[in-house]
């Protein structure tokens, strides 16, 4: 297991239109990225758990090779700017990812 903070240089969230919030995690380098992708260290069910939402509300969870990045897009809790809004741009919703410790080269150890 390894803290995501040690593996990534960018961890951010932002609106993707008024109804979606998208997470971008850009890994430190291609090697780190390839291992994360191989181990599926970040995935839809993990994101759903982290944000306390149904997995069906994670609309995409995808590894993007050109940017060495993982991207997940979630349904926004409420549409941007509706009554109850706390973050119009959705740019400060990344905190749960900062605490995250991910699967890292220890699959066998977990199983034993």
């Amino acid at each position, binding site marked *: 297991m390894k803290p995501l903070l040690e593996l990534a240089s960018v961890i951010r969230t932002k609106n993707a239109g008024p109804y*979606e919030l998208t997470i971008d995690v850009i890994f430190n380098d291609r090697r780190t990225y390839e291992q994360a992708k191989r181990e599926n260290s970040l995935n839809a069910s993990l994101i759903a758990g982290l944000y306390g939402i149904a997995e069906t509300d994670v609309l995409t969870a995808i590894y993007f090779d050109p940017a060495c990045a993982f991207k997940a897009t979630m349904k926004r809790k409420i549409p941007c700017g509706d009554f109850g809004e706390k973050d119009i741009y959705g740019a400060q919703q990344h905190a749960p990812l900062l605490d995250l410790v991910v699967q890292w080269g220890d699959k066998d150890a977990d199983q034993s």
Partner: protein
Amino acid sequence: MICMEQLTLLSPTAILGYGFPDRSFERGLSFGPDVIAVDAGSTDPGPYYLGSGKSFVPRVAVKRDLTYLLRAARTLRVPLVIGSAGGSGAKPHLEWCCGLVRDVAKEDGISFRMAVIPADVPPSYLKEALWDQRLNPLGPAPELSEADISDSTYLVAQMGIEPFVKALDGGADVIIAGRSYDPAVFAAFPVWKGFDEGLALHLGKILECAAIAALPGSGSDCMVGFLENERFMVEPANRERRATVASVAAHTLYEKSNPYLLPGPGGELDLYRTEFEQIAERRVAVRGSSFRPQPYTVKVEGAKRIGCRVVTIAGARDPRFIENLDEIVAGVEKRTEGNFKWEKGKFKLMFHIYGRDGVMGEQEPHPGMGHEIGIVIEALAETAELAEAVLGFARSTMLHYGFPGRIATAGNLAFPYSPSDFKVGEAYAFSVHHLLSLENPEEFFPVHFEEVCS
């Protein structure tokens, strides 16, 4: 029709009015751009700006940028293209921006042929489209009702490149367009010149945020694009910034749900075969992006009024008050509802508790509280009068609320201001975010020409 080997595009700033340093702009111009293009809008700042018809960027800032851009474009005799005028690109936004353009022309003594392209969708047209099932929710947006359309103060559609091409065909020196698909503002001129639509749109996708795609990134600095037949390149005008494979590729992710397929008017940009290459210290080349035509759809956006908002800001330092906060908030809510029971259903009250979960609400992983907290109380009501009354009552109730163990009986809240309450004014919500099928891409983006004389 390929008549040029390379086309140079200058994107001066991420949003018209965000500004740029003089030196960067001059350096951008030194590349001899064939077109200057800028995106003026976004739905990012929320529904207020579309709903109210007001600009997100202040007038003085927009006029400042316009002055630089109009002077440069007319000196170089190259087109100036502005999309999503006034921020949201509806009628009042477009008129506001065109007014500023005319003011600058007059003050500066410059003349040109201007094309103005509105992007408003008539509500009756949209209702018909709803009946004909030509209107579909975009992503998780809800199904649309006729009331959503009727309640919208403004409805706009994002135009693709076709109306811009029509304006260029008509000899426009300056194009001021209503709501536009951001990349189209940049891609229209190259496509008109015969360049590949896929590469042009991908270049537009990067240029629309100007130097945000550079390292270090900035929303108020220039980016230069060079488009060729097989590839394009980007380089920030400011020598203190670099375009890197990581910064450019990362920007391709920005604000999108799926980075490999970017849907837009008339088709999608396919990035499965895209390759990024660092060809100089500050310059990145991109190749392999392609455009896949599909049945023509445009994104329609609308916003509706949801009432009037009043807020107050207060701090709390008393540990016993902080300890009992949940109970106090519940008590204040109950007292407020009781006091205004005759107005039931006409108002809503909300407490944002900074220092606990003011940013993430129930998704906050660490909802513990420190030695002080910030509270924003918000009232939203049908009328400004009611919102003021509800907020005022909630504020004074919370200030003097009695709770077990209360020791500081003079008041529970610290207000930084007098007056303590802020009248935010009209509040809006997004009402339409749907895809509309069009038979003809120019269907409701009429191009009007105007000779602007000094």
